[in-house]
């Protein structure tokens, strides 16, 4: 069942088309990967979905309802949460507060304080950060800050989670942990749409992959189909990790 | 009818010349050195008073004073930046924080400079008479000193433009305005250049003040209103665009002249209204990026 779809999505910056007439869809329960060389428009697409940016034309629908044109907090409350490429945490607020914010404000129905507290604790537990709950977020390691972002996103009880380069900057051990976390999230019933550069990770856990290049969708399919796709190989020559 | 229009237009340009100068100065300080200098008007005031003092005490021709008070104010501005604002810049966590703290620091400067001026010169209104005769232009009469002011404003503006475009230092300034980090990599001594920019900004203010003193009475509290005008012009012309600020000054002068003709005393209110509308409609200004 389709949970997210975009039709004819286009975004211009000045005269340049950052995203050009892109159609995409994500089904419930899937893990879909979004890949492409630097500058392909991947984060821009996420920004369009999460309403950080507005579309020039086309539309984006979540669970059948149009979300393009909403404000970011409305998209979040509708059930779409995201993490950011450059980790955006609330540095001077303790870890717990970061996540509590999500539980208090980001859910579709709103939560009372005790419920939100419980929800936040569960989120922290899920990502493995309970012990650090009183630490100011800026004092965490990068890997933990990324976990914090995920916990905060999960606290908003999303149905769709957008992960923007979760693995960037992580060492191999942390990468494995991150991938396990992603699988755990999917097992909870949350659909995942993820941008990644690390090919191994993408290929191993994604059900489907969408490939962008210069703002256009150039290929789409299972990991096997993508790795053997001529266009993709040309575009990506040498780009693996 | 034509005489009236000429009257309004020229009056607007005369005022606009001064606005253009002080706006360019402010734009240098904000656009390049990233300091929203609320004390800009105080440098205008200093230029005015130094010129007045030189004229009254030593009988120095105000136009010659330009060459004297200019360097003085340039140096004061330069030193202020090197000591106060550079330190703020290095200790601020982000550009946003720096913009805020430098703005507040400039408030402090405003208090200090104004108070010092009051201590030296008292609070009374002062003035002098220079080239105070009428000139007939196509039927409308204008004061000679105001015409000279306009002339000098344009000359100074053009000279500065050439300086930016042709000299090495000018190019360094433009580079720093575009991208301070890269400019630093290219061998530009960023601290020096930014300090010079701030100094030049003060210099423009000083020139503006000197020219103002030729035509209008002055007092130590005169600066603030000009700061506000500079801000309005810079928003009008585009934050960061010096050409925009220069042209914007003339545009604002014209607007003020038209509004004054229709309803005297309302020009300042009209400026603010324009300012508010601009901020809401197009914060980057007419010529801004």
């Amino acid at each position: 069942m389709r949970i997210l779809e975009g039709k004819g999505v286009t975004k211009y910056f000045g005269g340049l088309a950052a995203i050009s007439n892109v159609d995409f869809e994500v089904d419930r329960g899937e893990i879909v990967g979004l890949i492409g060389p630097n500058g392909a428009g991947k984060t821009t697409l996420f920004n369009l979905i999460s309403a950080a940016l507005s579309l020039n034309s086309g539309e984006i629908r979540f669970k059948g309802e149009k979300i393009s044109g909403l404000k970011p907090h409305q998209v979040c409350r509708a059930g779409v949460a995201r993490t950011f490429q450059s980790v955006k945490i609330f540095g001077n607020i303790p870890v717990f507060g970061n996540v509590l914010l999500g539980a208090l404000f980001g859910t579709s129905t709103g939560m009372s304080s005790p419920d939100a507290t419980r929800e936040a604790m569960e989120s922290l537990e899920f990502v493995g950060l309970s012990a650090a709950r009183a630490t100011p977020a800026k004092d965490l390691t990068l890997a933990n800050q990324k976990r914090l972002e995920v916990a905060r996103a999960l606290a908003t009880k999303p149905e769709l989670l957008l992960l923007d380069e979760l693995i960037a900057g992580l060492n191999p051990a942390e990468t494995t942990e991150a991938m396990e976390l992603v699988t755990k999230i999917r097992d909870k019933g949350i659909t995942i749409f993820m941008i990644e550069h690390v090919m191994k990770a993408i290929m191993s856990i994604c059900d489907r992959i969408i490939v962008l290049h210069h703002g256009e969708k150039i290929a789409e399919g299972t990991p096997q189909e993508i790795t053997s796709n001529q266009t993709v190989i040309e575009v990506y020559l040498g780009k693996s990790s | 009818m034509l005489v009236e229009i000429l009257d309004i237009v020229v009056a607007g340009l005369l005022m606009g010349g001064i606005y253009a100068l002080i706006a360019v100065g402010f734009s240098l300080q904000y656009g390049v050195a990233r300091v929203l200098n609320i004390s800009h008007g105080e440098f205008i005031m200093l230029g005015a008073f130094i010129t007045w003092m030189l004229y009254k005490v030593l009988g120095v021709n105000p136009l010659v004073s330009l060459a004297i008070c200019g360097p003085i104010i340039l140096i004061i501005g330069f030193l202020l930046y090197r000591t106060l604002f550079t330190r703020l810049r290095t200790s601020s966590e982000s550009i946003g924080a720096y913009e805020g703290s430098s703005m507040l620091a400039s408030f402090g400067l405003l208090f200090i400079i104004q108070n010092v001026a009051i201590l030296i010169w008292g609070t009374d209104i002062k003035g002098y008479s220079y080239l105070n005769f009428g000139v007939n232009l196509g039927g409308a009469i204008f004061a000679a000193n105001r015409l000279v002011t306009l002339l000098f404003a344009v000359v100074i503006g053009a000279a500065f433009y050439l300086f930016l475009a042709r000299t090495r230092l000018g190019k360094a300034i433009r580079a720093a305005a575009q991208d301070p980090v890269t400019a630093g990599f290219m061998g530009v001594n960023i601290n020096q250049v930014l300090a010079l920019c701030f100094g030049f900004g003060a210099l423009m203010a000083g020139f503006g003040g000197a020219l103002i003193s030729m035509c209008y009475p002055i007092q130590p509290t005169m600066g603030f209103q000009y700061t506000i005008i500079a801000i309005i012009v810079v928003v009008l012309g585009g934050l960061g665009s010096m050409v925009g600020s220069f042209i914007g000054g003339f545009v604002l002068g014209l607007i003020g002249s038209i509004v004054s003709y229709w309803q005297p005393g309302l020009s300042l209110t009209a400026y603010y209204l324009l300012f508010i509308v601009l901020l809401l409609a197009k914060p980057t200004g007419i010529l801004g990026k």
Partner: protein
Amino acid sequence: MDISTLTSKRSLISESIILIIFILLAILPLYAPRYTVILLTSIFMYVVLTVSWVIFSGPTGYISLAPAAFFGVGIYTSAILGKILPLPIVICFGALASFCLALLVGALTLRLRGIYFAIFTFGLVEFIRHLLLFLELTVTGRRGRLVILVDQTIVYYVMLAIFAILLLTSYFIRRSKLGLALQSIGQNEDAAAHTGVNVTMVKVITFAISAFFMGATGAIMATRWTYIDPYTAFNPLYSFMPVLMAIFGGMGQLFGPVIGAAIFTYLEEVLLTRFPYYYMLIFGIILVVAILYLPGGLVGLAQKWRKGDLAEQHANP
């Protein structure tokens, strides 16, 4: 929002101290000289302006230079309505008028970047001043108006009441959902929006709440001047001073601004009588020194906010 049960001994002690101070302040007019009452009223005024300012500008980092506008609106409301309505209603109207103005201004401008917002609020005061002057001259034909006279003791008590209510409000905001949201906006506005915080609404409401108190203050303090005009009512100094006092006193703790304002007002009194020609200079120097050397300078605006009261108390559920 439930507030943590304040059972810790330390909290009880500081609570008691605060209560005692307020009781002392309440009975002060009975035995203190008139001059002290008037001085304290001035201190309360600046404290309220400063604490209100911090409620919004502290956590969010948006420097507002509008306090003079809201204060002035309160003053003018008092001048206009003072003769026809009883004092309590006048004060409420003053507060409400400022509240509405803040809603309007906030809705229009709080979507602008921080520095634009600051410039805008800076121009707002001057705009209202000149507009009002023009309107007065053309519509009423004369400049300014007279204000009703009110006994200084009444003014004292009203200000004390406003101060108390404000402190409670500030305290509860800090510990509430709203407080956490405000902090998050100051730390990373984008992330806050994506976490479900309606940032515009949070900013506008908080801005309006802070304006409410400034308006109320203006309405009662207007009675100090027998005659007011746009120039005295909308004086940019009433925007600069709260900022200065907040920076000096520190915005981290609830009482930072209170202390800053108290010290400054007293300092102003002393300077105005002894060195009337130097006080601007001294204030300017203090401001510059405070910005340069007091912890974090302006970065402290968002970060001095007491490290997540709400989060802290729930960190050990």
